[in-house]
């Protein structure tokens, strides 16, 4: 598509900036993203500390174990934020305004996702700082923190791209919010609250084993409580990358259907 003015990078940066501005101007997007995971972390840590007494529990501190849950919840909010914002652009006609500029289609998607990632990174820093104040230790040390953020961002991208796909496919913010409980259930039916080996009910253990979310959780958790676990990290990064690739491809396709330009 020529004449294209401006580089893809510039377009992505402008749209990412817009996405960040939008998020910070909607307390309903920022507050749940930051506070809910911390709230659930506090509740779980207070209520489930006894679980650390179970034989075979990988940590003697439940809050270390539960940090992964907070990062996963943050990723779910990325999904809602990315999906809702794109759906609103479809609903309001803003997408058409953008389609009339020489903007590349990819810039819209990448810009939105980059904006959501930036907010997600900030939320992650807050989770970690609050966790450290509450006595969390990261057994893999500073290097582990760097890998933690890389993995958390990739997982955030995976969920945000699924949100973007839903938002663009259905063009309705309500539809995006309607999918949220579904993903939340997936999180609860994973090994997020207990290690898979310690889940007593057979059906639950089976579901958690088949649930890809378990491996995302376990990848993050390994950095906090287990140490450098190549298999857990490979599964975590691998599954997140696959979901992200599928999500971005689906979202790009849905965007192509929304924006048909001659």
């Amino acid at each position, binding site marked *: 598509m020529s004449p294209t003015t*401006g580089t893809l990078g510039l377009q992505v940066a*402008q749209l990412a900036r*817009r996405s960040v*501005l939008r998020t910070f101007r909607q307390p309903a997007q920022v507050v749940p993203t930051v506070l809910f995971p911390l709230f659930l972390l506090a509740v779980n840590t207070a209520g489930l500390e006894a679980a650390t007494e179970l034989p075979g529990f990988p940590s003697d501190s439940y809050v270390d174990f539960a940090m992964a849950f907070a990062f996963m919840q943050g990723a779910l909010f990325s999904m809602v934020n990315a999906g809702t914002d794109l759906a609103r652009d479809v609903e*309001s006609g*803003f997408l058409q*305004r953008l389609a*009339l*500029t020489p903007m590349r289609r990819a810039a819209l998607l990448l810009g939105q996702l980059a904006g959501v990632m930036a907010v997600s990174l900030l939320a992650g820093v807050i989770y970690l700082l609050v966790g450290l104040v509450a006595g969390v230790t990261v057994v893999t040390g500073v290097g582990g923190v760097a890998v933690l953020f890389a993995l958390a961002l990739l997982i955030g991208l995976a969920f945000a791209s699924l949100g973007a796909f839903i938002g663009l496919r259905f063009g309705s913010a309500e539809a995006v919010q309607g999918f949220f409980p579904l993903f939340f259930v997936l999180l609860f039916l994973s090994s997020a609250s207990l290690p898979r080996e310690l889940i007593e009910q057979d059906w639950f253990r089976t579901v958690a084993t088949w649930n890809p979310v378990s491996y995302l959780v376990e990848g993050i958790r390994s950095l906090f409580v287990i140490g450098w676990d190549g298999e857990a990290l490979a599964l975590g990064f691998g599954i997140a990358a696959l979901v992200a690739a599928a999500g971005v491809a689906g979202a790009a396709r849905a965007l192509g259907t929304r924006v*048909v330009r001659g």
Partner: protein
Amino acid sequence: MTSDDNGIEVGGLVRDFKKGPRAVDGIDLSVAPGEIYGFLGPNGAGKSTTVLMLTTLLPPTDGTARVAGHDIRREGARVRAAIGVALQEAALDPLLTGREHMRLQTALQGVPRRERAARGDELLTRMGLADAAGRRVGGYSGGMKRRLDLALALVHRPRVLFLDEPTTGLDPSSRSELWREVARLAREDGVTVFLTTQYLEEADVLADRVGIIEAGRLVAEGAPETLKAQIGRPALEVVPRDALQRDALAEVLERFGSAAAAPPHAAAVRLSRGNDALADVVRALDAAGIAIADFQLHAPSLDDVFLAKTGKQLVSGEEPDEQAPADRVTEPVAS
């Protein structure tokens, strides 16, 4: 046609949708460079579908068009670079300020970085939005949103401007402000304007030429004055003092021409001899013993043109008070 041209040429444009009738059914029209063309029709007539096709946002089912010298099917990017578009819903982000909108639009339109802020501020000022530039658009009035929308459409100095119902829902003063700006763009900057409207007054005041669209087809086209002259004769609308005499009144009036549309309590005639017949009409009514509560003489309006061409009156659903232009058939108040 050269690529420097800023006119519009449309040939046999058709758009089908899976459900429903053919939205645009073979439209041919041409708009000269610098002209303001008013595309007039009721809701659902096919106006917006036509605009979406001409702005490359919707592929035509058949036919073609050249906008600013470029084919809308094959040279979409070139068409988009040459046009400015303000679509029906002023599609703005309520969470961003006016200035942030300009910043995003100037960047995406490829305005050089050094010029972006100045270009944005210049347009905001021209649209009377300088004071509101730092406020979020969610708090703007309908008129301010439309003006911002127009400012955004102009950042890359388009040669052709598409405005889809630019004043729908605006109060009369916001409407005339927008008209002034659109007229200025055409007269001073030589921008070609393709404007859709369901307001007769808007087409009459603003457009050099009007195309009337009904059920996807162009049923009349010409300068407003030419179209009105085709209808020619003035209409006389009379309200009888005694409502029971309405039929008798209509009978008398029909001696002077063909019946015209009128509210239920009145009768109207299109005077075949023009204003010369007025005295005779009054004498005939007097002779028939019909007392008159009110009467009004209407010069031919675009409303009459619309009625004559489509057999329908152009009445849109929203805000009837705001859109009643001075020259349309209004309900006289019985005295």
